[in-house]
Each structure stands twice: as structure tokens, then as C-alpha cells.
């Protein structure tokens, strides 16, 4: 599936929720249940230091697609990471470079992508794009 299609699928899923409580409970469940990153990749090199929560990101190229794994020490941050990974991982670097994150606004989680939250998510998205640019160059 293309990034846009996955994002639409996520937006549709979130429309089922009646209020913020349900959205948050879903994200907390995501945050709790998903093993997102291999422990060996939770290194200092892979860490993005937000002011509040820490985020780890690891990228690997599988054939012509980029696979991301990530984690956070805060569970809501981790839930949002799970959603971002679902949209961006196993995609071609070129598509990742061109993709946007507007679907996060549409599912009512905009505030978590605000730089003032300093939770590492804004830097994480930047990092995903940087990996995509780097691997795109490699593929070329």
C-alpha cells in the first residue's frame, strides 16, 4: 500500500472513536503492545533527545524499501510512533521524502507534533526523512 492509502486507512479507523479518551486509549494500547525496536538498536547513536521523552530510531534498507523501527520511554509518544511507522515504514525512500504528516492533524493528535511539546517526535520525523534522503542517494 502507498503511504497516502495507509494514512487514509488510519484516518478512517480514528473516525470510529467518539472522543479523545478513546483515541488516547487506543494509542496507549498501541504503545504497550507493539515491540517496535530491537534492544540492540537502543543505542546512544540512535537516540533523539526531546526535552521530555526520548525516542530511538533505527533504519534498514530491504531491497528498495526502507524499514524503520523506533521506540520511546513515554507510552503516548510510543503510540504515535507506532502510527508514524505504520505509515512510513516499508516504503521507497523517494515516497518517504515526498510524504507529509497532515494525517496526524486529521486524527486529532496535532498537539503531539508541536515543537513546544519537545517530545522528540518532530525531530523523529525529520530523522525519518533524512534517512530516506541518505538511502535514496545510495540507491541512485
Amino acid at each position, binding site marked *: 500500500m502507498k503511504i497516502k492509502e495507509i494514512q487514509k486507512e488510519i484516518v478512517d479507523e480514528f473516525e470510529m472513536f467518539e472522543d*479523545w*479518551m478513546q483515541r*488516547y486509549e487506543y494509542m496507549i494500547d498501541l504503545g504497550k503492545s507493539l515491540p517496535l525496536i530491537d534492544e540492540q538498536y537502543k543505542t546512544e547513536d540512535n537516540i533523539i533527545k526531546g526535552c521530555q521523552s526520548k525516542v530511538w530510531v533505527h533504519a534498514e534498507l530491504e531491497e528498495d524499501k526502507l524499514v524503520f523501527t523506533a521506540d520511546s520511554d513515554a507510552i*503516548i*509518544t510510543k503510540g504515535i510512533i507506532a502510527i508514524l511507522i505504520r505509515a512510513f515504514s516499508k516504503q521507497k525512500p523517494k515516497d518517504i521524502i515526498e510524504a507529509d504528516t497532515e494525517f496526524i492533524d486529521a486524527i486529532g493528535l496535532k498537539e*503531539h507534533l508541536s515543537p513546544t511539546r519537545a517530545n522528540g517526535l518532530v525531530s523523529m520525523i525529520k530523522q525519518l526523512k533524512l534517512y530516506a534522503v541518505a538511502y535514496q542517494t545510495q540507491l541512485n
Partner: protein
Amino acid sequence: MIVMFDVQKIRKDFPILKREINGKPLVYLDNAATSQTPVQVIDCIVDYYSNYNANIHRGVHALSQEATDKYEEARKKIQRHFNAAKPHEIIFTSGTTHSINLVANGFSSLLKKGDEILVSAMEHHSNIVPWQMLAEKTGALLKVIPMNEEGGLLMEIYDELLSEKTELVFCNHISNALGTINPIAEIIQKAHQVGAVVLIDGAQAAPHLVADVQQLDVDFYTVSAHKVCGPTGQGMLYGKEEWLNKLPPYQGGGEMIAEVTFEKTTYADLPHKFEAGTPNICGGIAFGAALDYMNAIGFKAIAAYEDALLKNATKKLLEIEGLRIYGTSENKAAVISFNIEGLHPYDIGSILDKLGVAVRTGHHCAQPIMDFYKIPGTVRASFSFYNTTDEIDILVEGVKRAKNMLQ
């Protein structure tokens, strides 16, 4: 709980408290970050720009004179509030950070290699970084006065650290992350015995109590207006006249000079030597109005009321299983830093925000304290005289709800 004043009447002075956040009434418990502004101060700001906005200290026209009079009147209000000996010992700055940098910069020409600077373990980054920069520049040594688990300074180690090499001592009056009220009278007196100069960061203390700078015999004391119901971008540095005269100017520009030729410039007298350029005129005047407002309520009543809020909130929060409060010193201002076992402060803060409760989460610009407790940060609820026990109940219910959702 004994109500010393009519809180509901006071709340009417603060238009922002009527706001709703995420469909819920705002419960503002981030007062240690910034206080809210009463209509009396807002009116003062509107009055300035509506009626007498002009540049000060140089115009011959009536408006300039009026603005200058009001600005200098504010300086005198601040002088009286902190009981400084002279009005020119009050330097208007953009806030505590500016005040500290002004002093740190001044000492870069007065310190030499091997001199020692003592700073407490519970400082805000703004009272650590300028001194680190000063130490790097001068070759002076920065030493730390450690703290105990309760968040109190280890005074016996302070005694050991003090020596004839000690030139400067820095400490906050009240810790922003823990609420500890530090024994500054003792700190100042002991530092003076070895001939050291003391700067006390009063940013967190100013909204809760009144420091008498002469009685304390402190050399420098710093305050930000936005912590005492005043505007942001405004603050003050109190300095003893003799020290302000010894320090070189911080910034060059207009207003701070006596005479300028291309060969040499002579500096203006205090306080203008440290007030280069057009200042935040309205901010200075509004700072004065904010102190008037708080003094009209009375700091004794404010302290007693906030103490009652602190005890109420502490008791109710501690009933939540797994909740730990950081900063349990006997002598403490209305600030509660806490965590719940196994939960990240960011998660708790995010859910509280959804419930309309504004708290601070993170390291509160005091990373060394977080390192001390080996935690990523805390949730911090900080109370003001316009908060109510009903709001504490909303906070406590919110924390319980967050806990249920997250565990």
C-alpha cells in the same frame, strides 16, 4: 481550610481564568513557570500605550516627562518592596536570566584563575550556565553544594567548601523544581565571613514571600516580573551600590553613557550604566503595578493561603498509590513535583492537558536535580493565591484517571 481572603473575588480579577481548554474549565497549575495577569496590570499596560507612550530620560516634551516619572516611580515601588537602600540599586532588566548574565559578565574581569565559585545543586539552568561560562573564561573553579533526598542543601558540606578562595556563591531562594525554601540568610552570612559575594536568584520566591535585601545583607538579588503577576520580558537586578559601581557595564549603547567621543566614552551613573538602549518602559511600569496588586492582597495572607493549598494537595496526592513527591523539605513553597511508579511524566501531563489541567512536565530546566533522583523528569503542579481547593480536587481526579488509563 481557613480562607483568609475571598478567592472567588480575586479570581474575577484574572480574565484568563474564565477560559475553557479542551471543553473543560481551565485549571491553571503552572504558576512556577509564569503567573497570570490581573486586570489591574492589563489596564496599566493599556493605559501606557493609550495615554503616555514616549521615550524616557531625554525628551523635553510632556509625554516623555510623564513616562519617565512613571518609570522611575515604578523603580521606587520595587525599591520599597524589597527594602533596597537606594532606588538606583534597582536595575531594570528583561528578567532573571538577564540579571544573572549581567552579574556573571561583570565578574569576568574581576575573577582570576584558581578562584572558586559555589553553586547549589538545585539551580535552574539559568543559574548554572552563566557561571560555567564565567569559570571557563576566567579559569575559576565551579563547585557544587550538594543536596539530600528531601531536596535540602547539605549545609555542613557548604561549610567545608567555603574558603578564602571562594569569591562567589550562587543559590536560589526557592527551587523551581522542588519548592525548597533555602536557608539563604545563613548562606549569605557564612559566605560573607570568607569575603565572598552572594547572588540569590529570587525568581521563584518573589510570588510567595518578600525578601528584605538589607536585612539579608545580600549582594545581588534577581526577580522576573512575570512570576509576580507582571508582564514577561521584564525583571530586575538588585545590587548593592558598591558592587554595582565595581562591575563594568554589560552592554554599550544609548542611555548608559555620560559623554562619548571617538577616543573615549565615560559611563553614566547608576542605574543607567546598566540600562543601555530604550528599555521596556511599559514593562517596568506594569511590574510596579503588579507588586501594588499583590501587596494590596498582602503577602502574609498569600503565603498562608498557598501553604494551606500545598498541604491540601500534598495530602490528597499522596493517597494515590505509587505516587512519589520530589522535594519534601520542611520549609517549602506551593510547588509539588511528582511521579507515579512506572509512568512517564509526559504521559500524565498529556492526559491532564486533555482534562483542562495545566501542569509542567519535564526536567524544569534543572537537569542536575533529575540526574540526582535518576528520573527523566517530573510532573509539577505549582499553586498561586488564585487557585482553589476545588481545582486541587480536579487535579487529583485527573491524575487518578491518567493512572487508570496508562497502567
